[in-house]
């Protein structure tokens, strides 16, 4: 078989593969900071309470599974792989659902491209993406029209609504897309019925869950309304600050100066670490006011840079503010990690232990938390930690002033 024949025979699958690789490369190379920014806005705990708390709200399962996936974003490589697998699966599902002939397989890329676009929007969490994926999986299961699948379809709307949220309204497309009903108007009552049933579910859920109707109709965790929108620029600087890539921070700023006060502060710290300016210059140039905390990413950035220069109380405050600003009321593993550090440095060991106990229930912070537990239980061990000991000395011997 020649390459031409292989291409002719398998081009749809090759297209799928190319799509997956493109998704993977995009996230790994162009948007790793967005994945990190998503990860820092949650605290995924491996316990039943965490699951049950989410199952109490409409769309809770989709949120839970979305957060399950997002915890892997801590490592951009595994995060990019997650996106590639999910979006490729959506494309294959779509292809299966529309039962298209090969020449129409290109249509099956519409939904994954739409989800890709959604994933690039920092205000849209992972929840609607997962909800759409699972709704499509449900559509695939109901592909054949039988009496049973028709009954299941109706039952799937309320159950699906509670588990996945308003994305189940897509089930209204089943008669058209899956069953290829002809004439089309014969399927209309079924589709309208599903849409109305979804609307009824939204109405009923407003009596059962503590959210306003407009938020339930939109999906409780489908869109984040926040006054602290993070920009991609701030996310990128934050990532560079986490990795202490001082050269890249300076180069980025030199190429394109920023209006963000947090970014400007980060550049000062980068220059300090490159020995281009003195500590006095940094202290004179730093802006510590609330204006520097205009977004969640800038608050995390401020926390990171404050730790770099030993301002532990500012690092603590900004990490706490970042966590409290998370629009869906999640807590943040990254913020808790920082708070463990600041509370250990400032001698508030019981508070550190409280946060450590939570981080011990996470997948990727567990080992670090266990190491820190030893330190919180035996504060003398701080002396053996060069950075914390330096910060502690600064904290213990510094002159107290106020910041706002």
């Amino acid at each position: 078989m020649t390459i031409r024949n292989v291409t002719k025979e398998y081009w749809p699958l090759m297209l799928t593969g190319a799509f997956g690789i493109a998704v993977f490369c995009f996230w790994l190379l162009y948007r790793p900071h967005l994945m990190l920014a998503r990860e820092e806005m949650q605290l995924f705990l491996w316990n039943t309470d965490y699951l049950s708390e989410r199952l109490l709200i409409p769309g809770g399962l989709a949120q839970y599974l979305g957060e399950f996936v997002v915890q892997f974003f801590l490592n951009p490589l595994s995060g990019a792989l997650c996106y590639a697998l999910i979006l490729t699966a959506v494309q294959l599902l779509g292809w299966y659902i529309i039962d298209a002939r090969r020449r129409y397989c290109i249509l099956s890329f519409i939904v994954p491209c739409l989800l890709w676009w959604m994933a690039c929007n920092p205000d849209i969490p992972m929840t609607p993406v997962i909800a759409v994926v699972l709704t499509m999986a449900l559509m695939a299961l109901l592909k054949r029209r039988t009496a049973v699948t028709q009954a299941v379809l109706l039952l799937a709307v309320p159950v699906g609504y509670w588990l996945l949220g308003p994305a189940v309204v897509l089930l209204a497309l089943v008669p058209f897309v899956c069953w290829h009903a002809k004439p089309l108007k014969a399927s209309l009552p079924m589709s309208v019925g599903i849409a109305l049933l979804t609307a009824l579910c939204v109405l009923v859920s407003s009596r059962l869950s503590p959210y306003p109707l407009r938020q339930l109709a939109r999906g409780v965790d489908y869109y984040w309304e926040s006054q602290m929108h993070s920009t991609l620029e701030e996310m990128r600087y934050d990532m560079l600050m986490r990795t202490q890539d001082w050269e890249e921070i300076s180069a980025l700023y030199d190429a394109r100066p920023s209006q963000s006060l947090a970014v400007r502060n980060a550049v000062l710290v980068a220059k300090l670490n490159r020995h281009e300016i003195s500590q006095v210059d940094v202290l004179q140039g730093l802006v510590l006011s609330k204006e520097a905390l205009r977004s969640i990413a800038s608050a995390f950035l401020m926390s990171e840079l404050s730790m770099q220069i030993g301002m532990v109380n500012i690092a603590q405050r900004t990490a706490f503010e970042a966590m409290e600003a998370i629009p869906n009321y999640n807590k943040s593993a990254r913020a808790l990690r920082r708070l463990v550090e600041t509370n250990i440095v400032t001698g508030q060991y019981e508070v550190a232990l409280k946060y450590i106990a939570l981080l011990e229930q996470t997948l990727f912070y567990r080992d670090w938390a266990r190491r820190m537990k030893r330190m919180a239980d035996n504060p003398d061990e701080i002396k053996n930690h060069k950075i914390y000991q330096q910060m502690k000395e600064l904290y213990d011997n510094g002159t107290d002033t106020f910041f706002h």
Partner: protein
Amino acid sequence: MAQTRFSISRLGLALAAALLLAACGSRPEDVTRTDELPQIYPDYVGVTVPSTIAPLNFCMADEDVTTIDVEVRGSKAGQLHANGAYADFDIDEWHSLLAQNRGGELRLTVCAEKEGRWTQYREFAVAVSNDDLGEWGVTYRRIPPSYEIYSMMGLYQRDLSSFSETELLVNTRTPDQCLNCHTANRTNPDQWVFHVRGSHGATVIQTGGRVELLQARNDTLGGSMVYPYWHPSGRYCAFSTNKTSQMFHTTKKNKRIEVYDASSDVFVYDVERHTILRDSLTMKALWAENTPAFSPDGRWLYFTTALRQVYPTDYDKEMYSICRVAFDAATGRLGSQVDTLVNTRLTGKSASWPRLSYDGRYLMYTQTDYGYFTIWHPEADLWLMDTATGETRPMDEVNSRRAESFHNWSANSRWFLFTSRCEDGLYTRLYFAHFADGKAAKPFLLPQRNPRDYYRRLMHSYNTPDFTSRPVEMDARRMAERIESGERVATKTE
């Protein structure tokens, strides 16, 4: 067939027995006895409880303990047993035991298994008071101990005879709104007030069977109605109005935040006439009046006042004294003379949150080195004044090295509650104590089914708690809709 059924039922029984055993944990054997008291969490050793309190479930403070076995014997009658990772008492059996031993005590024997070895500790007692609590439960706000930005918070009520907590109003229903102190009139849930801060701000008042949403801000007053306290008649409610700011310490040991008022005043609100009654005695220029409270007979208005300072330089010089002025409920007017009861010039400290016991005999307040936002002051302690003699003393029975703060009395004045950060220095928890003959018994933490797990996972502080004699009836959904609407009652000033 019959044989098969028999086998299946036997198998089922065996499985059930195995499950039961597994659920119960292991039983003490080869027990080593020690004369030490058990270190348990929460520390219920030697506390005094009302006979209607929820089970005092507890675990060993040592997290390496895998199983505890607890025998509870009543000094008068009855006994109870619990075995497992923590002592989880059956709620009905617990209440039955408390009822049988009212006026007596429960004696608890704790055995703990650690690394396969059992240790039996010295027996300890929990006194069951003869004094009724006289309250159904408590109301409180739950809020993260945050700086400026707040996420999920809410007003809740909790049945003190069980572990049931229900929402009064959570701000997920009213996004971006801050819900402030829910305050009832002498623990009566028919009359309450709370404040909403944010773009849909309001002062929500329920009285006489109707709920009103007042304008959040009165322009003549120049601010909103912040810290409330009801007049016993129910016609008036005293408020402070505060222009609050905060600043953050860089390296102050154990202190993060200093909350202060750029200005504050105290006034009385006439509920019937929707009128703010102002008086220059509690609205003096250069002075910051704050934290008002009526006496139980309604004849006095207590408040705190401090000479305003320059911030941030003199932040630690703002010290509040406790004063009172006569109040005439017939006219709604204040008297002409202010008495100073706790004078900062004499104490060198700052006193705030005066709360008289409902029998009028004692005045409880919080004392700090400076300021009035006591929860961020580790040195904050509860103090008590005997109103008959004027003598004051620190309440060492309940104070810790960390902040003790907001407090309130039960309607019969035999119990009080307060918030404390004694556990970890940051997350405020709710404590209760019996009070008799001018002395408080050892306080106990608000019981939870699995206390360690609950309090460890809880990322909220308990805030502005109070007793409630019955459950508060509030339709949270309807209330949220009204808050989101523009419906507001205007207030007048006099």
